[in-house]
């Protein structure tokens, strides 16, 4: 970097990046998503994907699932900063590799082509619980649920089978077994 000419210090060593899934329970009120997302953008944290919906209409609680990457120190900060937000009730965090947690994304694929192409496309999705949501002579809309990188691969592979449009969600997560997030 050469001789620093700034009033600020030179950046220190960077640690290793991990991918984490962070689950946040918040009051479902105006601006709450902006608060959470603003915290990430304002402090330079990364958001790989985000999924949010109300899960308890009675208590007005929404569950936000955020996939993020960062050094262990940054992940720790993300959690602590989230916990300080007034509408945040609870924050759970786990590593992408964590075997005790399932996480899934959903994708909708629109494929256009003749029957054989459409059937090939459907077959290619077999591993990911494909559901045909809409069907015409020329097209299928196929829903699958899978991991992010699996959907990435599918998106690539279906190109030659008439894929013309993709819509996908962020990841949602759930613990395995009878346990729930603490």
């Amino acid at each position, binding site marked *: 970097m050469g001789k620093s000419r*700034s*009033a600020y*210090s030179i950046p220190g060593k960077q640690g290793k990046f991990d991918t984490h899934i962070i689950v946040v329970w918040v009051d479902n009120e105006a601006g709450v998503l*902006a608060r959470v997302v*603003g915290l990430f953008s304002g402090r330079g944290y990364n958001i790989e994907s985000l999924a949010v919906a109300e899960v308890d209409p009675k208590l007005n609680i929404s569950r936000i699932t955020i996939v993020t990457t960062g050094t262990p*120190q940054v992940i720790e900060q993300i959690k602590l900063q989230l*916990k300080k*937000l007034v509408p945040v009730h609870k924050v759970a965090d786990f590593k992408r590799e964590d075997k005790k947690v399932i996480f899934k994304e959903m994708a909708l694929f629109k494929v256009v082509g003749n029957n054989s192409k459409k059937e090939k496309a459907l077959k290619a999705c077999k591993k990911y619980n494909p559901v045909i949501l809409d069907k015409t002579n020329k097209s299928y809309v196929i829903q699958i649920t899978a991991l992010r990188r699996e959907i990435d691969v599918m998106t690539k592979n279906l190109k030659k089978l008439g894929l013309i449009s993709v819509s996908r969600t962020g990841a949602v997560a759930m613990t395995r077994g009878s346990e729930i997030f603490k």
Partner: protein
Amino acid sequence: MSKLYSGAEIVFKCLEDQDVEVIFGYPGGAVLPIYDELKNFKSIKHYLVRHEQGAGHAAEGYARSTGRPGVLLVTSGPGATNAVTALTDAYMDSVPLVCISGQVPTHLIGTDAFQECDTTGITRPCTKHNWLVKDVKNLSQTIHKAFEVATTGRPGPVLVDIPKDVQFQKTGYTKFKTQKKINGKIHNKFSQKEIDELIKLMTLSSKPIFYTGGGVVNSGPKASELLRELVNLTGFPITSTLQGLGAFPGNDSQFLGMLGMHGSYEANNAMHDCDLMINIGARFDDRITGKIDEFSPKSKKIHIDIDPSSINKNVKVDLPIVGDVAEVIGSTIKTIKKVKPNFLKSNNQKISKWWEKIEKWRSVNSFDFVNSSETIKPQYAIQRLYELTKNKDTYVTTEVGQHQMWAAQHYKFDKPNRWMTSGGLGTMGYGLPAAVGVQVAHPNKLVIDIAGEASVLMTMQEMSTAVQYSLPIKIFILNNEYMGMVRQWQELLHDKNYSESYTAALPDFVKLAEAYGCVGMRATKPEELDDKIIEMINTDRPVIFDCLVDKQENCFPMIPSGKPHNQMLLGPKDQQEKKITGKGKTLV
């Protein structure tokens, strides 16, 4: 049926219930219903500022000098945006503020109505929390919650945005019962085990240091008392951040002075070489740590803080203790007295070598400067100001720049809440309105803004506020005609290219004072300084004191950018005398 109150009345009923006596504000269309009610609430005094930023800083000065939340009232749109700098300042320095802003009526929100802005959107990143109240039924609950959020845990600013129609709507009001102060959202409490561990590390250490910050002041006067007791009990050296000054007496022999970029040689070297660092209510800010990778490499670090997110943010620590400073120090003292009644005696020996080393650093006298009989040296001016006001329980605010650092170096505080400065945000223009707020809170005390001529022009209009309310604040300008701190960086790091750091057309501050209806004074020679300062102190009106100082003076010592603590630049005197050699001295 219970009586119905308008939203505007409820605002004041809430303020009354929160024991608010003073608000700073500025009217406008979207808060007119609230202003209309003001006359009916005699226990609340409104101070009309000249700019909403001034209201914010005045509220900060009020808050920091009293330990109570500061309140400001501003209109929608430009009123709210003008308050943003002060809110951000309060956010960075953990000052409890409650900002009430007017908003366009609910049915116009989102239509780009006249003086509409997304106030909660704009202030979201610079408040602890904010609320847009769309239903008068939620108003009282929201305002009380706002006070709770502002004052609990790590304090900070909050904002309540009230649309104009909500100010007219009516509803019932139930009196608010003050609950026991709770620690905001933070529920984890420190354990005795952590205190035991802390004491164990303290007994093992032969090179300990306390590093204390604004958290001690925020924890209340009790925390400062306990800190003094703990420091005496252990015999350890102590240094403080800019914000923590006053929590421990500045002239005590165990105090090493401020640390950090312009901190003392002994404080920074002790931080670098210590084997145990006990951080109490400070946050490892980059102006303190310098180069992170080389920050105090050999020490075990303990961090006591009420805000868990301050721990391990910049520097990894060995023992975090989350809790209120006063409580943690209180338990520590109690435990030491119980399990190690002879702590001081048994430890004195152990740390005596350390003290010898510190005394050696101290003998460098790093705040020293070459005085002059022709021109007033800024450091000399502050020394004289200190000597002539130290017996008066003086409150000092500052602007931002060299003068601020010299004030921190040479003005010695021995009580908390006497020193108000913008540390985190470094807001030029903070000091004058902050002094207004301090003087409002302490009408009979001496309140001085140690100012730079550039900074003070940013909020100079608040002199008019001071005059209106007969607030005898003293604006002591160290006038070097330069944005001195900028000039210093340009001299040292940008090959003396003094790009736009000279103010070629300064006002005549004496005439300016007179134009505002206050008193103007000027000192140009060292020999007249004392008499003029005394005259200033004895003037029972607001004063602008134009102290013409050396224009070239630089602020030393200084840790240059990206350097560790033990590589400080020392002042010209040391450079001439070549007193220090070796690693401790690196010159540009």
